[in-house]
């Protein structure tokens, strides 16, 4: 599904070059649950931004669902992002002036789904995170955990191939965090590909595999020995 080879990213500021990624290679298959970990400045955010087409690499190659990303225009990438990728952000990024329904509708607006077809898609997505009764509530009135679950519903509404979750429990209490991780785990169990960015080992161990970055290179890329045990411990 994802194949990166010798991926590089340099930032140039007034002649000074900073290398955020110095040649990263790995593959992620459909249905994988992968955590990306690393300390601040390790390059994990840059990597996820490139993987989700929010940014472009300055070297190496990136193939997504068989398509060479470097060959695609910004508009084509926006369309792929809309159809194939769901985002869950640490700060939820909900539009608080809109209702739950209207927030979850946003990706459908950009995929030109006819208005009558949207209702069921939105209801299904909100149902999948267990917040049916909040469908027409203003998002400003929701708790942090509920907001993040709505953000997951928004990520799911277009039935994407992959979910990128960037520190999804970072702004939540432990109970809400456990609920959110449980939903992501459920999505993985249902066959969805999930890429989780986190700095918490307990959260990272929900995944089958952890890629650790340091100073723009992969420090380790290994399977989690007993993910089921880790999950139970986290949820407790």
């Amino acid at each position, binding site marked *: 599904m994802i194949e990166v080879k010798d991926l590089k990213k340099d930032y140039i500021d007034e002649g000074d070059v900073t290398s955020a990624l110095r040649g990263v290679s790995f593959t992620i298959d459909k249905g994988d649950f992968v955590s990306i970990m690393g300390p601040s400045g390790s390059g994990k955010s840059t990597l996820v*931004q490139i993987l989700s087409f*929010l940014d472009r690499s300055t070297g190496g190659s990136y193939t997504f669902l068989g398509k060479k990303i470097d060959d695609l225009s*910004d*508009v084509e990438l926006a369309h792929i992002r809309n159809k194939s990728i769901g*985002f869950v952000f640490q700060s939820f990024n909900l539009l608080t*002036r809109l209702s739950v329904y209207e927030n979850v509708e946003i*990706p459908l607006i*950009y*995929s030109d789904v006819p208005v009558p077809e949207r209702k069921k898609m939105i209801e299904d997505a909100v149902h999948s995170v267990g917040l049916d009764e909040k469908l027409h509530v203003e998002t400003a009135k929701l708790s942090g955990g509920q907001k993040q679950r709505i953000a997951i519903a928004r990520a799911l509404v*277009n039935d994407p191939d992959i979910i990128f979750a960037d520190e999804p429990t970072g702004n939540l209490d432990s109970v809400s965090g456990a609920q959110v991780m449980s939903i992501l785990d459920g999505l993985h169990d249902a066959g969805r590909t999930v890429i989780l960015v986190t700095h918490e080992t307990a959260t990272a161990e929900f995944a089958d595999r952890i890629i650790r970055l340091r100073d723009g290179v992969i420090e380790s890329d290994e399977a989690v020995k007993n993910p089921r045990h880790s999950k139970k411990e986290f949820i407790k």
Partner: protein
Amino acid sequence: MRVSDLVKSSQATLKHGKMRSLLTMLGIVIGISSVIVLMSIGASAQQYILAQVQGLGSNLIIVIPGGSGNGRFASPASAQGIVVTSLVQQDVNNLEQDPSVAAVTEENRGQANASFEDNSEVVTFDGVPANFFAVRNFNVTEGYAFTDGDVQAYNHVAVIGPTLAATLFGAGSDPVGQYIEVKNIQFRIVGVLASTGTGAFGVDQDNIVMVPISVAQTQMLGVTYFNDIMVQANANYNISFAQQRVETILEQDHNITDPNKDDFTIETQQSVLSLLGNITNILTLFLAAIASISLIVGGIGIMNIMLVSVIERTKEIGLRKSVGATDKDILQQFLVESVMLTFIGGVIGIALGGLVVGAAWLVITRVADASWAFEFPISAILLAVAVSSVTGIAFGIYPARQAAKKSPIEALRYE
């Protein structure tokens, strides 16, 4: 992105900040209503002025002493206050001979005090022949208009306008048979004119004394020339042909071979209408142009608020881009918001302008008791809607482009 989504999204944003939206619109509301009011008043004034000229009659040719050259807007020397003595009785006699001419009349005007007992009023006195009343459609409501006999006998008789009658004798009284003094001559009033109202540029045409031209020329003014000659064209002839004949006859009379050196100017209702129409159009456009300055100020207000909105909604722009919005989608969204602001502002401005015009019409017709048409031209409404929408695009494009250009990563990071 569907148009319905664009409109719905913009509506939601504008509704969310109602007070801000209203205040932002205010500049456009004021600008559009000013344009509407000025264009409407301009159109009413035009109607009013043109109606006065149309009262002259369509078959009337007016000859004014002094040439006006070739200039489209040049006025004859006599109209500039210079005494020109080129029109005389011989001209009238010769014009009367031509078959294209039905009637010829002439006048000599002056200003003087008209008094009755202790009442006195500055009036226009107009020395005219007996046929003047018929040629100019001046009706006499009380008494009669003086006759050729009165003119030839130098009789001191007068027909006065209704305003003067009311001023000197009181409203509702019958002045016929009374004597008024003008320029130390006692005139017996033989008739009172029907009201012709206020003329173009606010001159009260009813504040007048009409006396035999023989008396006016010899005993009041001491002149032998005329202030103007009016020719009524024969209905069997085309007015342009009659006009051409008048020009030829007068040139022959005055020994003029080069038409550019004519010592007279010919006006017809059509030419005056055309000239006044042009002048009032230019005035209306000029007023509308001044009013549109406020539209520009309003547009800058919109641009300012939209720029603030782009900064405030940076994170929203990042989110929308991350879920699939293209630069074009973001540009359209912000542009539709600014156009919607100016369009709604334009509609409110039109309504407000209509109210002001209606109120002005009520005051002018009811309080000032003047005849004033309520003009609310469709062209002004269409122009206002178009201008307000174009203002939205013109002043919304820059903020919208700023929004569209934002990098999704930078936008998502914005706090």
